[in-house]
């Protein structure tokens, strides 16, 4: 109850816009409140002040005021520890469901002052602590478990520090437009579908330019000369001419050929096969209810297949 109220308050009080590019922590983004230790310290100071008054200890006044102003000024230091840090999100490698997504944020400290003990955490308790040396950029890896296939959003992250005395909690929210692609978990090893490897050899089909094999959808990384410009002109979309020396030896990983199991299991199985086929160096294609990926063998193709599997049935 209290938690949900706090959540609501936070949503109301602090903007929740998703950001792109570089974020600079300025005074409008940094919030500061005393910590529990801060309140306890204030209580100790009040006790000391009462003692000073009662016993007329002028040196006690000096000590009390010194401690109080040190505590107060530490608020400025806490703010300074966060201020003017520049943050941008880095590239994120896709992971398989069940693994840990490694978000990377680049923290640039442009000033000549080292920043100490910055904490980065999300609302679920994942947490990383780091220092930022002066005038340098530090990549910070933030790990979030990825239990499900699809897109994994980092969500809103909190950046905080209690430097230098732990009396004040300075924090800021960052919510970058970054997400991690999570592939389905590969199923337990299974033999590749037999029908596909027609010659049974499974050897690497030598790719060549000898025979025109057909067209397939363009995948990032395809060579420019191979783009079927005529097809593009015919408004068939961006397609690539395929050539193969051994046509017909390609492997089709076909959704419809799979036994009647849960869709997620099917995706897991197909993921396993994509990986295995890639390792074995086969030309393989993927046939899903939503569309086909023409057979090929390269890293980009593998990535495209896995991507289709990851986002199957969901938004792009």
């Amino acid at each position, binding site marked *: 109850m209290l938690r949900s109220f706090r959540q609501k308050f936070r949503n109301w009080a602090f903007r929740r816009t998703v950001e792109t590019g570089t974020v600079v922590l300025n005074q409008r983004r940094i919030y500061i409140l005393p910590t529990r*230790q801060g309140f*306890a*310290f204030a209580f*100790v100071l009040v*006790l*000391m002040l*009462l*003692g*000073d*008054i*009662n*016993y*007329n*200890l*002028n*040196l*006690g*006044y*000096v*000590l*009390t*005021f*010194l*401690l*109080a*102003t*040190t505590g*107060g*000024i*530490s608020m*400025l*230091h806490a703010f*300074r520890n966060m*201020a*003017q840090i520049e943050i941008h999100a880095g590239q994120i490698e896709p992971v398989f469901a069940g693994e840990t997504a490694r978000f990377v944020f680049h923290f640039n400290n*442009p*000033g*000549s*002052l*080292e920043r*100490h*003990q910055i904490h980065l955490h999300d609302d679920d308790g994942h947490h990383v*602590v780091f*220092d930022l040396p002066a*005038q340098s950029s530090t990549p910070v890896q933030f790990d979030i478990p990825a239990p499900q296939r699809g897109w994994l959003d980092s969500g809103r992250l909190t950046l905080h520090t*209690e*430097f*230098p*005395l*732990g009396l004040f909690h300075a924090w800021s929210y960052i919510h970058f437009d970054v997400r991690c692609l999570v592939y389905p978990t590969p199923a337990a090893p299974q033999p590749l579908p037999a029908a596909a490897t027609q010659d049974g050899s499974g050897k690497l089909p030598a790719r060549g330019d000898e025979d025109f094999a057909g067209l397939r959808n363009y995948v990032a990384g395809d060579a420019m000369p191979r783009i079927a410009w005529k097809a593009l002109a015919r408004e068939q979309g961006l397609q690539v001419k395929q050539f193969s020396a051994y046509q017909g030896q390609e492997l089709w990983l076909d959704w419809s050929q799979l036994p009647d199991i849960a869709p997620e299991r099917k995706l897991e199985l197909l993921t396993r096969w994509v990986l295995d086929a890639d390792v074995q160096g086969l030309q393989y294609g993927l046939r899903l209810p939503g569309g086909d990926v023409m057979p090929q063998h390269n890293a980009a193709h593998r990535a495209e297949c896995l991507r289709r599997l990851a986002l199957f049935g969901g938004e792009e």
Partner: protein
Amino acid sequence: MKLNAPLTFGLIACILLVSAPHAEHLPLWISTVCVALLAWRAYLTWGGYPLPARWLLLSVTVACVLAIAVTFRTLFGREVGVALLILLSTLKLLELKAVRDATVLIYLSCFIIITNFFYSQSIPTAMFMLLTLLVIMATWVHMQTGTLALRPRLRIAIVLLLQAIPLSLIIFVLFPRVQGPLWGMPQDAYATSGLSDTMAPGSVSKLSLSDAVAFRVAFNDTVPLREQMYWRGPVLWDYDGMTWTRGNNATLRQPTLSDTSLPVDYTVTLEPHNKRWLFAMDMPAKISISAEMAPDFQLLSRRPVTARTRYDASSLLSYRASLEEPPQQLQRALTLPQGYNPQARRLAAEWRVQSDSPEALIRTALAYFNQQEFEYTLEPPPLGINGVDEFLFETKKGFCEHYAGSFVVLMRAAGIPARVVTGYQGGEFNELGGYFIIRQADAHAWAEVWLRERGWVRVDPTAAISPERIQNGLSSALPDNAALPFMARNPPEWLRSMRLNWDALSNQWNQWVLGYNTERQFAFLTRMGMEEITWQKMALNMLAGIALLVGVFTLVMLRRLAARRTDAVQAAWLKVCRKLEKAGLPRAPHEGPMDYAARIAAAHPDLAEDIYDIAARYASLRYGGEAEQDGLPAFKDAVRAFKL
């Protein structure tokens, strides 16, 4: 934020530093146990051993608390509180588990520092406090900086403290002072030293071993002679054969002074002595703080003097005191216990017969002391039941209390009303500060006799035996081998002047820092030009001062963040671009240096050589990996030389 070994060592250092000053007054066993516990903790940390079991710690704690209860016979009061606080903090170190425990220990250390101020608030104590604070801050910062090395941590701590010092100064000056105490204080709240309200053989000579300052006096204009400086303290009337006590005055009639002349005005800064009496010179006439004047010219404060107190007073050096003394009082001043000191009584009776006036009798008595080879010494032989007889006729060795006491006994036996006055005599002049220091070693006792025409007259029998004591102080009156404190003898001149300079500094510290109370605050603020001082006004000024300083700090601190390394190469290149822009050839946003140069060269063939040179240098510095220190000066020269 982990409890690593350096953090633990830091905490041990904190507890050690804050407890160390208490070793002076705590029972030895507590100090020993604390040091042993700290050493044990350090050993465990150093070797990486586990902390002691819970039951062991618990039994040690219970044993310590019991031992404290037995030692002090109570578990309440200030001294016990300090002892408990220190022991329990030390034990807390041994069950240090989480960072939260470390925070608690830091707060406890801050609190223990303040308890030390019950005992001392001197300049060295303040210096030590700053050192301790620095160590505490460095340890505190450690909790928030993980593995940061000691040196940068110290730097952070020093910066924090340096920023806090001017801020606290503002608050110290302007924080509205409340006159304490807010609640009743335990009996042991104040240390006591100084004169008591009884006098027995040995009670004053014991004080003369103490170097401690009793009070300081600054004279406004006329400075009386040293032999006139009798600082009046408790007046003792009642004698039981051994001890002199104040007794109860038989009348509440105010004492009177007549035929007065030679007024002297001065300011006394009295060290706390936890008794009610205030000191003023014979005879006090006026005092600036609320005090009552007892019928025997004894100034009494309303409450025991528990804090350093400053007051203005004025005295009259020439006077007739209480000519109309009531008969009950005079009767008190003649009473002697029956059956003691028969020889002295007989001697007094003889004198009474021989003398034709009380003055002559007094002269006879003083001559007796002067001519019968009496000796002035700090170590008189012990006396029996008839102490005065033994002293007068056998040992003939005594200190001022012996002389004052036996003189009053003789006077009373001879029918002259007399009483003992204790206090201080003389003082040491501090030229730097322009004031007199009166130490416990200046404690003195003298007599007063009542004469019909002259009232109470001071008679100092010590002056008859040892005039040097009155004129030059104790050290000149005693042989060199007397057991005086080192400083009360005649130290070398440089040491003496150093000591006086230090005392002058301490006096300023006492007046301005420790004595900064409501009154001083008002005086100071008025002098600073503040009018109609109210606490609201002070608070407002305080906040404004703090805001101003914090604003300055903020500017300075945040400037360092924005201070990016200026890119000299870029700056020089932009200078060229600006020059060209003024000439109507701005660089397009997409243009690289070489393209731009080519375009300029095409438009202004005369500039071609220069602009190509500059662009090439720029590209080399910027993209070619040329080190700045090699190419930058030449590049800058080229830019400077570039003219349209």
